């Protein structure tokens, strides 16, 4: 019997309500088996993925631009612009982008900050929190945390209530106010496009990790050492070595979200 994906999801959701109710599976929000996400043997695996961004190695605007472009191209992120070419602040979608230092770290900023830091642009993206408020508030488990620490989105399940955007203290999530497809310059057939009315965000390139590739932004940064990606639970990983040797900060640590993105200042 042929079962397509939709039918499978329908049957499995009914089964979850029927059987899962008894097992109290519902009380464990947003947990799914890791093998469901990385079925291929050559995939990169980690206990918890993490990213270190070295701000001083990111000073080159071309480098930052390359990272943003690589990500947005790989994930079919639409480019909403006003007629004069400036970003359309109302409708824009962004997975990784740059912001001034004082916006990324509002509580770290002070008037005597070294001039080179106060004017610097910093890459910012989803922090793939260890304790993600977006996952906590989602009423349909359309956003969930995988066993490798990646906070992922199922755009097919998202009802577009935007509670997750309200919950994210980093402004890392975007909503498709309009149909994104006409605004995608060149569609990458290897990654799905989204529809209007759903939320989207950085997925740490889980689709690339499954194929044994590093995230697009990390790959775009190349040998610059600006973006280092790896397993936070592996003592010998490059991220851990960097975290051991350099002083790093995270965005809004006081909120208890436990970001997996670290910054070398």
């Amino acid at each position, binding site marked *: 019997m042929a079962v397509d994906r939709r039918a499978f999801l329908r049957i499995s959701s009914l089964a979850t309500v029927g059987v899962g109710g008894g097992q109290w599976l519902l009380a464990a929000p947003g947990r799914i088996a890791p093998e469901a996400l990385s079925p291929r043997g050559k995939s990169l695996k980690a206990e918890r993925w993490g990213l270190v961004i070295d701000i001083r190695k990111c000073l080159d605007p071309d480098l930052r631009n390359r990272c943003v472009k690589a990500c947005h191209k790989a994930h079919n992120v639409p480019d909403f612009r006003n007629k004069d070419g400036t970003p359309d602040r*109302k*409708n*824009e979608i962004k997975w990784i982008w740059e912001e001034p230092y004082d916006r990324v770290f509002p509580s770290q900023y002070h008037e005597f900050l070294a001039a080179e830091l106060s004017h610097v642009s910093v890459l910012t993206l989803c922090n793939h929190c260890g304790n993600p408020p977006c996952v906590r508030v989602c*009423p349909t*488990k359309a956003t969930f945390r995988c066993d490798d620490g990646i906070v992922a989105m199922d755009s097919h399940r*998202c009802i577009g209530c935007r509670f997750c955007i309200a919950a994210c203290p980093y*402004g890392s999530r975007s909503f498709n106010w309009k149909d994104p497809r006409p605004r995608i310059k060149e569609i990458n057939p290897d990654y799905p496009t989204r529809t209007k009315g759903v939320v989207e965000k950085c997925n740490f390139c889980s689709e690339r990790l499954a194929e044994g590739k590093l995230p697009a932004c990390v790959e775009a940064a190349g040998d610059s050492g600006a973006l280092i990606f790896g397993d936070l639970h592996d003592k010998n990983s490059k991220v851990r070595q960097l975290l051991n040797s350099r002083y790093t900060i995270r965005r809004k640590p006081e909120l208890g979200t436990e970001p997996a993105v670290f910054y070398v200042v």
Partner: protein
Amino acid sequence: MLAKALVGGRRYYGWIVGLLAAIGVGLLCYLYQFMNGLGITGMSRDIIWGFYIAQFTFLVGVAASAVMVVLPYYLHNYKEFGRITILGEFLAVAAVTMCMLNIFVDMGQPLRALNMILHPSPNSVMFWDMIVLAIYLLLNLVIGWTTLDCERNGVPPPKWVKPLIYLSIPWAVSIHTVTAFLYCGLPGRHYWLTAILAPRFLASAFASGPALLILLCLVVRRFSKFDPGRRAIQNLALIVVYATIINVFFVLLEFFTSYYSGVPSHRHGLQYLFFGYEGHAPLVPWMWFAAILAALAILILLSPSKRQNESLLALACGMVFVSTWIDKGLGLIMGGFAVTPLETVAEYRPTIPEVLISVGVYAIGALVLTLLYKIAISIKEEPQAL
């Protein structure tokens, strides 16, 4: 009983037709939004909730306020409210209907609304809000309808209604508490991240809801032979004034904590709303207007002689209603969103289709309320069999 809603004069039918027209316009605008996405509203990447969610939050308060007539009548045997409990219950039904519609029109993928039930997520406050609102709607509909039917037939209400009535009292508190939890459990939205949000919601609910109920009572008395009773209205007015005072007190507490502690992020919301933040001050006149209305309404309603003057009473109730509508509507939403997580400032201006959709939702609520009140009043106007 439904047949009673169909019998009415020209004015009644004119009003119904007017409401249907507003609903039709709202429906057309909603179809436009359905085809093109929520981009047709004024909402943006930073201001992700707007007019719809503002009306939702405000109307949950109106719905909860039914408890202010139910509680004195059923728990304290305050007879004067016996005549108007049905008006409070049916107001709650109409208000919850509007709440649900406001949530629905705010959804990006409304056809997937049932995902809330297919994938129940007890970790999400929205899941609980859906449950408490749906049950509250049922409670009020069942209680109101049953007691009214018994009144028509001149028999006492069946025994099973009593436990439902008692349940509806804490349930009213729960709907507004859970709605406050939608907001006050979010890290990084400092205007909402305050334990007093739920009490503040309840205080403003018990001000705005009974204020609307007084206005409705005055309208009912004017257009029908049913008199809700002068003492009932006067005692509702007392509830309105003390709830308004408590609400204002709570807002002042927020000001103290935010400003005296000196923590910038705790101050941003209030600063944006009442004084302007980094040159952005679109809501400042609105918030001060709301503050002045609340102050004037308190002055009018505290004085017994002024309160007993029903024109002044109506004016004061209108002021309380508008004041809380501003404070708990767009004020609440913008206080939380205007200063973004990156500490930039974002602006929001509802679009015309967005407002027309909201008007359509209000018209549906008004239609539900009109039909239910028509039935209730027709029965109250009949000579009592008992």
